């Protein structure tokens, strides 16, 4: 593990990206920041720009219009950048799998480091998922 990665894991800045979701996962991501769940105690903070972010929280079923933007944003992110798929839609497109506008799942577009299932996943699940990602990067599986 490089020094940058080691330092980065102490305070992950996340960028939240909705690629055609129903809003529920996005609300639950925001919910993690509010007093009951308060992810800032783990050093996790919502970043305003992708250029400041270490983790990309992706929700939604990657429709045609936002899939191109997603790939563009992933290229703009400073490396290492971990992608976390939140919710059933970004895992497998869920209920929208037969839709004409959702041709590819998320992991066919960008490499994904962690998957958090649920529709929507509870805030506890999202926090647990991000913490598991930290442990995975550290090499303790």
């Amino acid at each position, binding site marked *: 593990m490089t020094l940058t990665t080691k330092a980065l894991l102490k305070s992950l800045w996340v960028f939240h990206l909705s690629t055609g979701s*129903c809003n529920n996962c996005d609300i639950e991501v925001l919910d993690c920041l509010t007093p009951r769940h308060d992810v800032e105690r783990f050093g996790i903070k919502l970043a305003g720009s992708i250029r400041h972010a270490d983790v990309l929280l992706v929700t939604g079923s990657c429709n045609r219009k936002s899939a191109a933007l997603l790939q563009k944003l992933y290229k703009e992110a400073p490396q290492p950048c971990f992608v976390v798929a939140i919710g059933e839609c970004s895992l497998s497109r869920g209920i929208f799998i037969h839709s004409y506008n*959702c041709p590819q799942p998320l992991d066919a577009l960008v490499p994904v480091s962690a998957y958090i299932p649920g529709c929507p996943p509870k805030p506890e699940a999202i926090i647990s998922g991000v913490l598991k990602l930290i442990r995975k990067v550290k090499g303790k599986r």
Partner: protein
Amino acid sequence: MKKTIIPIGPYHPLQEEPEYFTLTVDGETVVDIDAEIGYNHRGIEKLSELKNFDQSTFVIERICGICSTSHPYAYVRALEDIAGVEVPPRARYIRTIIAEGERLHSHLLWLGLAGHFLGYNTVYMWAWKLREEILDVMEIVSGNRNNYAMFRPGGVRRDINPDDIPIVLKKIKKIVPTLTMLHKAVRDDPVLHARTKGIGVLTKEESINFSALGPTSRASGVARDVRKDTVYGAYHEMDWKMIVTENGDVFDKVVVRMLEMLETIKILQYCFTHLPAGPIDSGLKGIPAGEGIGTHEAPRGETFHYVRSDGTNRPVRHKVRAPTFMNLPTYKATVKGSQLADAVIILAAIDPCYCCTERMAIRDPGGKRLFDGRELVALSQRKSKLVQEQLGIRELPLDALGQVAP
């Protein structure tokens, strides 16, 4: 004077959904606005036509996470309109409970985000902390925090456990003092007064012309609420007030939503204490051929669903019209001439939800849009004419419209 264009989005830190706005500004004053959506389009109407009537409710629920009750409610009402079934009283009460719980958490979510947009994060944290309590209530009642999956054509899927009711009532009672405190704090705050009073005024005439819905229209003095205007659910069986204010500015929209929360708590308490006994499902089997409409007062306004059935187990056509579709154009009227710093809160005041509003445009490979607004209007007029001819309806001159007998 030179005009500048400021792009907002599609992925902006203030918005939790992707949408793209271009603000044309002259100095600090907003001159024009244009919106581009489509980042959330999932083709739900088509998906709904691929599934059978029962499965469709789950797709409809995922049109929007915050209105995850309003859309199924309007949809099942459309199906019940086709089949002509009566919903049992207990099911009507459970539906009302779920719908009002959703309204409560949606309004709190909005209040928090409005505070966040103003840079007043204390309101954001307080409102969302309180919202958790309501989500707990909903989790006890339905088993999930957001997508409740309680609705089915002809009734509800799950019953409310009588043992849960005292716990839920106690929780709701505990919410009231905190909510009242939050209301007073927001209502009497001089900073919020300065930021919201007289900002983004939507006059009564504009509200009627734009066909604004829900709290957006009620804040402008237009008393329009599906819960009062039509008889459905358990709303007509209890006493509650429709909140209407006159000024139409951002502050009034805040006040309408805050007072509505207290009315909603009244409705919830009445429903839990007067929950009638009996079946929760009318045992609706199959939908006959025909067409039906269903409406419901979502937290943002009237949700409208149209379903056509040909007697098979799938809808032939399913049309969804969400409240933001009507409310978003009012932004064009309210934002013009305002300061750039106020543009965000004026937009937030209509409580926009783009997931519900998503539409699709067809373009040829060169990028030219094929069906523009004028063509769609012409198509619609041609279709109306066809229907008129088939039914033998004579076209009335415009001045005669006022004199048609009801």
